[in-house]
């Protein structure tokens, strides 16, 4: 039997033409960045005060979580202080809901600000940190900042670096078929992009004629635990790896919420409308080291997006330093009170440890 089917391969000459860099028709030669149709979009307009409040709330949450490892309220912390500016913008722009009509989120462990901006009850993060039975994400089973929220399409977060990139094409395929403008969003770190799963994602979202609506994010803090980016990465930049696949890509300063907002508006509009992938690399800071394993102490040699944004808001007359401070203190106080209550909540019942190994048929 011949394996030849309806899809006869191009002749050797045609193949060579492709090899010589020829492109398929209908394709803009300029791959980098969003196409002009989507450039300069500003709707929905950015509410700087809202963005600031969500950033403050997220930061206060993370600082409390770090603190909980010291007060004996939790075993291990890992989280996202330093990624709030970009993540809050993203969270506010997510199309939130359940099912393929809405956005799917495949998140790594520095994504708390996305969820805070989406409206998560911060008490739930404390519950997970304290391994309480009331932790709605994992019932006290998983580490903090490992979210799973069925009603918001936040799929189970896992510690395994980069596996989310191999899974994301699946939810996007469901969305492509379903129609509408729901997209899949996947994020992870710079070091993790060395795993093959990152290229699996690039490949699977860009099969010719079967492109998928995915926002592929690389949150570049220039570190993988103790290893500096330049020790292990020759890419310039990482997002450029999308280009050979015909995937548009760009970079943005994730410490600047205004730039992040603008870029996200354009990129999300492109993905939602064109049903095509986009790869965006985001320069961010890592403000408390890698995790509580490395101490979780505040570092001082990285840009703090909160400090910068508050200075800017003060300068622009949007929010005074005093007002900013008050907002933060308000969140901190509320959280401290919440923690007192959560301490009283029950621990997971060991006799239920087998529950949910399987879903009962029904």
């Amino acid at each position, binding site marked *: 039997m011949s394996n030849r089917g*309806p899809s006869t391969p191009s002749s050797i000459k045609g193949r060579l033409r492709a090899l010589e860099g020829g492109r398929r028709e209908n394709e803009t030669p300029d791959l980098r960045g969003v196409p002009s149709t989507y450039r300069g979009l500003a709707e929905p307009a950015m509410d700087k005060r809202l963005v600031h409040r969500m950033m403050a709330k997220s930061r206060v949450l993370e600082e409390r979580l770090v603190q909980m490892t010291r007060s004996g309220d939790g075993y291990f912390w890992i989280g996202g202080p330093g990624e709030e500016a970009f993540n809050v913008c993203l969270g506010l722009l997510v199309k939130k809901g359940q099912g393929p009509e809405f956005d799917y989120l495949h998140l790594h462990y520095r994504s708390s600000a996305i969820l805070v901006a989406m409206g998560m009850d911060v008490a739930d993060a404390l519950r997970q940190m304290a391994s309480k039975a009331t932790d709605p994400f994992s019932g006290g089973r998983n580490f903090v900042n490992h979210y*799973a929220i069925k009603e918001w399409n936040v*799929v*189970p977060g896992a510690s395994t670096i980069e596996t989310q990139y191999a*899974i994301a094409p*699946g939810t996007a*395929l469901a969305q492509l078929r379903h129609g509408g403008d729901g997209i899949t969003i996947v994020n992870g770190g710079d070091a993790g992009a060395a795993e093959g799963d990152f290229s699996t994602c690039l490949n*699977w979202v860009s099969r010719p004629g079967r492109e998928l609506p995915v926002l592929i994010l690389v949150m570049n803090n220039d570190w993988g635990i103790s290893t500096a980016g330049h020790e292990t990465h020759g890419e310039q930049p990482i997002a450029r790896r999308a280009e050979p696949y015909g995937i548009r890509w760009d970079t943005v300063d994730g410490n600047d919420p205004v730039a992040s907002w603008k870029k996200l508006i354009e990129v999300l509009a492109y993905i939602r409308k064109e049903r095509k992938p986009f790869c965006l690399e985001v320069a961010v800071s890592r403000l408390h080291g890698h995790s509580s394993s490395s101490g979780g102490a505040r570092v001082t040699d990285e840009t703090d997006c909160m400090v910068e944004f508050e200075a800017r808001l003060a300068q622009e007359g949007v929010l005074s330093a005093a007002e900013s401070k008050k907002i933060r203190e308000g969140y901190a106080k509320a959280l401290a009170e919440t923690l007192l209550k959560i301490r009283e909540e029950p621990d997971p019942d060991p006799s239920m440890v087998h529950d949910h190994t399987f879903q009962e048929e029904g």
Partner: protein
Amino acid sequence: MASIAQAIRLALHVGESELGVTDIFGEDVGAPLGGVFTCTQGLEKTWNSPLDERGIIGTAMGLGLAGCRAVAEIQFCDYIFNTIDLLKLAGNSCWSSVGQFNMPIVVMTPVGSGIHGSIYHSHSFEAMMSHIPGWKIVLPSTPIDAYGLLLSAIEDPNPVMFLYPKALIRLPGEERIPGEPAEAKELSRMIDAPLGELRSKWKPSWPALPHYRIPIGKAKTIKAGRDLTVLTYGRLAPVSKTAAEALEAEGISAEVIDLRSLHPFDEEAILESVKRTRRCLIVNEDTEVTNYGEHLLRVVNTACFYHLEAPPVLLAGMNTPGIGLAWGLEEVQVPQRQSVASAMRELAQVHA
């Protein structure tokens, strides 16, 4: 009668036309080939994936998380070993999210020796797979079991690993699948893709298939016996049966149980039989160190220790790094009819 390849096709047809299967995909699963073993010919929801097993399992998981019903194929189980971490994730999504996200996917992959497959087309996978919590695992040895179990796997809200013995894929079954035409030729005319140019225009014509399932977790006694119980599955199920039948002439009466489901497995049926025969031989072809049969052996030994007249025996594949291509090598490396018969004979003759 239908072969396993045809039975799988029939089940997938029911899956995509009645049970909401949205995707049947993997390497060469789509047209024109319909799978290297023809198991996916003529179906509607098939497509060819990139040559990337991690992408296959990952994408199936994503589809499952989004509520789709995906059946993903790994072309040979020999090539699934770069995805173990993803299989583990698929098995823990429900548990780690306290029941929020189930993972309704089926992964199918051919296993075992018997086709001169050499090092990389002869692997077994049940030992490693059964060590991954959160999955159900089936391994039918007949077309009708393949059919009924694949349908149960598709309906199951959990990840199910559907292993099938590649050496038996093309053999006709002995039992008719409900709805299957009386004549094998007729079935072939209806659902086997033609060769060559005709294929591009071909459409299958599916027989009407009434409801039929085989529940996951139920074994099948394929030969009754008195003197010992043989626990087996896959390629070695018919081999064990034939060997046992031949031993009747020597006055040895072996009961042969085809497990069909490996997790969960039919503990009740197994223990009932072993307590009755008081001897137990476990036969499979996976390598013998940390072998799934050792799990069965522990369960049997623990539950039946005081009934047993001899220690339970595992007859399995040699612990070598691969199965050799030369037939003389394969022959000694994995159990064959002769070695299975010898093991039965030996066990029957042990007297404490």
